[in-house]
């Protein structure tokens, strides 16, 4: 009973906040509704027993991706009127995408329920006494090792690309050289002299 209540609560909140994401007038509010949708999707993951995926969803999407998203949206000077002016132009295109998505979902769900026995068994592919974090790790690092590493390389290339595109060497700046500062000793910087009066100071 409690699980069913929790499921309907999370599901309703996902759908509701998803709707508000696209209808909210203020883009910052949109991002915040999106974050609420992510968070409740994590709750749904918990209910199907995928606690590892749920935590990853919160850490990666809510904790990292959405924060950057929120940053960008807060900094941007967005003209709301201009944003809304394009709505009619893209409405048809958006509708087409929506139809494709819905029909694909129906096909996938149909194939799942009408599928052979092997497909149905994938609902619970792990032994019950094994935490799914171990199950995921066991598969990722053995059977899918090359795919996993290839994904890592793709991310590395993307990161290097982003750095190369945004990095520029500026001339005329004097960056702090910390190791040089730490290496400095008092005798390099301070002199004790007994200066006779009336002779001026050597600088």
């Amino acid at each position, binding site marked *: 009973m*409690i699980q069913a209540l929790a499921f309907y609560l999370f599901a309703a909140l996902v759908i509701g906040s998803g709707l508000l994401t696209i209808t909210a007038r203020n883009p910052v509010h949109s991002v915040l509704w999106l974050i609420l949708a992510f968070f409740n999707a994590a709750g749904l993951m918990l209910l199907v027993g995928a*606690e590892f995926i749920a935590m990853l969803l919160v*850490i990666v999407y809510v*904790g*990292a991706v959405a*924060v950057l998203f929120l940053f960008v949206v*807060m900094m941007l000077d967005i003209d709301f009127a201009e944003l809304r002016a394009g709505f009619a132009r893209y409405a048809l295109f958006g509708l087409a995408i929506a139809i494709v998505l819905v029909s694909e979902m129906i096909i996938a769900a149909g194939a799942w329920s009408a599928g052979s026995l092997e497909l149905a068994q994938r609902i619970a592919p792990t032994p019950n006494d094994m935490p799914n974090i171990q199950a995921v790790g066991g598969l990722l690092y053995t059977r899918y090792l090359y795919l996993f590493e290839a994904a890592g390389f793709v991310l590395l290339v993307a990161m290097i690309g982003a750095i190369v595109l945004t990095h520029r060497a500026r001339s005329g700046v004097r960056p702090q050289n910390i190791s040089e500062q730490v290496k400095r000793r008092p005798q390099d910087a301070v002199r004790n002299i007994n200066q006779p009066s009336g002779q001026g100071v050597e600088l």
Partner: protein
Amino acid sequence: MTEFFQSTFLGYGFGWFLATLLLILFIALPLMLAVAMIIYADRKIWAAMALRRGPNVVGPLGLLQSFADGLKVFLQETIVPSAANRGLFVIAPIITFTVALIVWAVIPFGAGMVLADINVGLLYILAASSLGVYGVILAGWASNSKYPFYSAIRAAAQMVSYEVSIGFILISVVLWSGTFNMSGIVEGQRGQIFGVINAYGFNPLLFPMAVMFLISALAETARAPFDLTEAESELVAGYQTEYSSMSFALYWLGEYANVILMCGLNAILFWGGYLPPFEWAPLYMVPGIFWFFGKLLFFFFVFSWIKATVPRYRYDQLMRLGWKIFLPISLFWVFLVSGYLMLTRYSA
């Protein structure tokens, strides 16, 4: 306790609900009291190191100072700036406070004394602490005032940066203990060194991680010397400048609850949690909760000590420390620890 409630007339589901609710109050209320006393302790330690007296007027030795402050704040008028984004302005402190409380669900106070003994406990803590950023960013943005916004950006960048290296530090602990469960991590430290000392911190491979975690914890909770989010000379008072009354108090409570949590995490991850320091039978006469709180308070003293003695960093130095020093070292350390374990523990 859950079984007791389930065996009464309440039945399985409702009994579980009521028992969990009571246990949550059992953690949250003492935590609020602890926050009040720890603020007092913080001020006293700070004052003693500056050769001052600190709070000494309200109650014996000033012990009731925090309660007096709380009462004062409670009686103040709640002011919402007219240009502020009203809804978010009110929600932001609630997010900070809630997130600071929910993390405590997975903290083991003693053997078996944990509200939610989930097998992804450490990931839960990471997830919850990554939510803490929102309370700060929203406060800065919703205030519609430039200093809180600057401070919120500083705070968010700082928290996100240090979460990266904290993640890698935690991974090296998890690799060593082989579990994400908090109680499992504590139990894994039993007899860690020569079968006598119960702490990962004395393990030469994990000691550098313990030091880095302590420093990262300071940065994550924006304590001195990394308290750039409320650098008074630059930003008035940080992201909570526009807040007053209870909404300000929620930030106050949430921040200190996070500080206590980080002290507790130091104790749990590296210094044996609720286990006594040595594997010696008479030491087990003392309940585990006392060892845990003793270690927690020691780390809080270290936090206050650092606050009283170390000058504030500059922002670029803070970022340099996080990205150019902590991140490469912790990344290398994950490699080192896993390589060592591969050669010794899993070589067969």
